[in-house]
């Protein structure tokens, strides 16, 4: 088990899958010569050449559609969005082409493609560059949505996403690229899509967290432990399809739930998880499910306001206390 950063884990996954299948290629802005805006594709141009690691013009709609077309013709594209904020220009090709092609063709054309890049906030990059878009993509059948929170998950899930025959929206987080974790060395190590992970066992309350909020939830759990509150942290890892069973099992054990997310609350993934918990575990809830999301405001630039806008450990701790009525 090597200890590596999430950035390195993603890089390894890309490199290994490109070695494994020559139909896999990486295309996006600055992914080749520049080694990736966030260096996730470091060394790949040198390893695989400019046929398979391709710098694209700034034309998100165009190259997203190009990727879907290449997938129709048998390739397995990995399309990098420099950040998912820019994928907003490409939603038509993702939602209308990638997500629906297999269905409208009566099963004839599958679309094995991965759209990946950082999602959510960074460091004071203001409102147009700090958006969390998982609920948008998770809304639509035909897409799969993945959000890793550790180096091992990042590597194992990206490898599975690339091997998967459906379009996968793979959402990373800029603030997490440098976070380290143990990753199995086995080049065939993968993590299946659609399987949640208990990041920490507990008995008194459940925190459902994803991406950046997982480490925050774990810190909060440590603090709460000092006051004798045992918190279980569940990370769905895949948002669509959602492994609700694992979440429900935890809820039936703890009877109290806080959902922590970096996205806006309204019609967010948290609202979906909350609604499903009520639908499936109503009688097990000792308190209403609580959501802790980013502020219902565009992301401000000012550092003090940005901090206020995002969930933090203190607010997670308070939320768990609230559902624990203490």
């Amino acid at each position, binding site marked *: 088990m090597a200890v590596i950063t999430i950035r390195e884990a993603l890089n390894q996954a890309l490199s290994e899958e490109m070695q494994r299948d020559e139909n896999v*290629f990486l295309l996006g802005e600055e992914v080749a010569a520049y080694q990736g805006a966030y260096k996730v594709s470091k060394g790949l141009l040198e390893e695989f050449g400019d*046929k398979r690691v391709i710098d*694209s*013009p700034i*034309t998100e*709609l*165009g*190259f*997203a*559609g*190009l*990727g*879907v*077309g*290449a*997938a*129709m*013709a*048998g*390739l397995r*594209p990995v399309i990098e969005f420099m950040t998912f904020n820019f994928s907003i220009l490409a939603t*038509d*090709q993702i939602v*209308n*082409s990638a997500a629906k*092609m*297999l*269905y*409208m*063709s*009566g*099963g*004839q*054309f*599958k*679309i*094995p493609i991965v759209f990946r890049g950082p999602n959510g906030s960074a460091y004071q990059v203001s409102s147009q560059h700090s958006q969390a878009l998982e609920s948008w993509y998770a809304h639509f*059948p*035909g897409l*799969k949505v993945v959000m890793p929170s550790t180096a091992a998950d990042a590597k194992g899930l990206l490898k599975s996403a690339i091997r*998967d*025959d*459906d379009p996968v929206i793979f959402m990373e987080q800029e603030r997490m690229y440098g976070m380290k974790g143990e990753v199995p060395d086995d080049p065939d190590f993968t993590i*299946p*899509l*659609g*399987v949640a992970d208990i990041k920490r066992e507990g008995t008194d309350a459940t925190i459902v967290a994803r991406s950046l909020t997982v480490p925050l939830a774990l810190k909060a759990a440590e603090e709460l432990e000092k006051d004798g509150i045992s918190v279980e942290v569940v990370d769905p890892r*895949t948002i669509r*399809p*959602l*492994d*609700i*069973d694992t979440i429900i099992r935890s809820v039936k054990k703890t009877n109290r739930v806080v959902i922590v997310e970096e996205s806006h609350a309204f019609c967010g993934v948290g609202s979906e998880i909350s609604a499903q918990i009520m639908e*499936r575990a109503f009688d097990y809830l000792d308190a209403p499910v609580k959501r802790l999301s980013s502020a219902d405001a565009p992301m401000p630039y000012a550092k003090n306001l940005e901090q206020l806008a995002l969930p933090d450990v203190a607010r997670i701790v308070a939320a768990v206390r609230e559902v624990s009525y203490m």
Partner: protein
Amino acid sequence: MSELKVTPLKPRDESSGQATATGLAEQDSTANLSPDELREEHEHRQQHLRQQIEELDRETLQKILYQMVLIRRFEEKAAEAYTLGKIGGFCHLYIGQEAVAVGSLSAINADDYVMTSYRDHGHALARGTSADEVMAELYGKAGGCSAGKGGSMHLFDRDAHFLGGHGIVGGQIPLATGVAFAAKYKGTGQVSLVFFGEAAVNQGALHESFNMAQLWKLPCIYICENNQYGMGTSLARAMSIQDVSQKAVAYGMASEFVDGMDVLAVREVTERAVERARKESLPTLIEVRTYRFMGHSMSDPGNYRTRAEIEKYQERDPVKLFSDTLKDKGVIDDAALKELEERVRAEVEHSVKFAEESPLPAPEELFTHIYANPIKVTSDE
């Protein structure tokens, strides 16, 4: 899936000349002509046709005519079925534009790729998808080429390398560019043919695709079916220049303009573009001036065009134009033509029977084909 596979011709030797955007001139020559001028013009084309016919084998010529007639009669029948409520949703007829799909698709190989918009019946049939499966798709039946899930706008046929009818104006342009990317990536020598209307030219998706195609030298052939209207809006009211083929200049892309009522002219232009794509791996924009004889879709009364304008173009009905030529060239006679019409009628009748008898999709089909690799996440679903 294909009864009418296309025999590719051996590339013709004199067809390698660099293309030029001769749009402006050409366009003026076909636009608003007087009946007399039209007849002259018509004569001129007849001669050009005769030359080309020398070079083509009977079988190919007959297949081209057969496909054009099949599309025409098939859609006449579809229109009938639509008014009877047998077909639902949007239904965009291709009548008047047959020479475009038939001519261009006669110039490519069976393993090349074809994509188009929602106005896709003609392309599917010309590509060799059976009339049975196309009609059944329009009927929303399980036997349809998209299993009844796509409908008129979303015909697909993997075996025929027909990559579909797409509903978002311009949406197929980046897709086809990606198909060309894949062909080049794999080095198969295949080309990607994509059709779109002139109103789609204003979409950003085209601008982004053209730049990538020329920048990366992709074997993609962009065929703009300029039928001069996007729904009720004429080209003049939607585009700041009237000459679609000139758009290629902004990308350094080769382009050509061709009369879309002349099936062999369309074939010839496409052959040049195909050769450019195969030999030099370069894209081409082809502007085909054509005209739709029917409304935008079955629900469009079409008040935005005068009867006179429509009749002007009907005088140059591409199907009639070509069959007349084949007749006076002696490639077919009245008997053969009658026999061909008869075969077509039978095929269309059969397609209706097939569609009528084909079962509705089973209820559980609602939830199939959402994922190629479905993941079962929960016990109680």
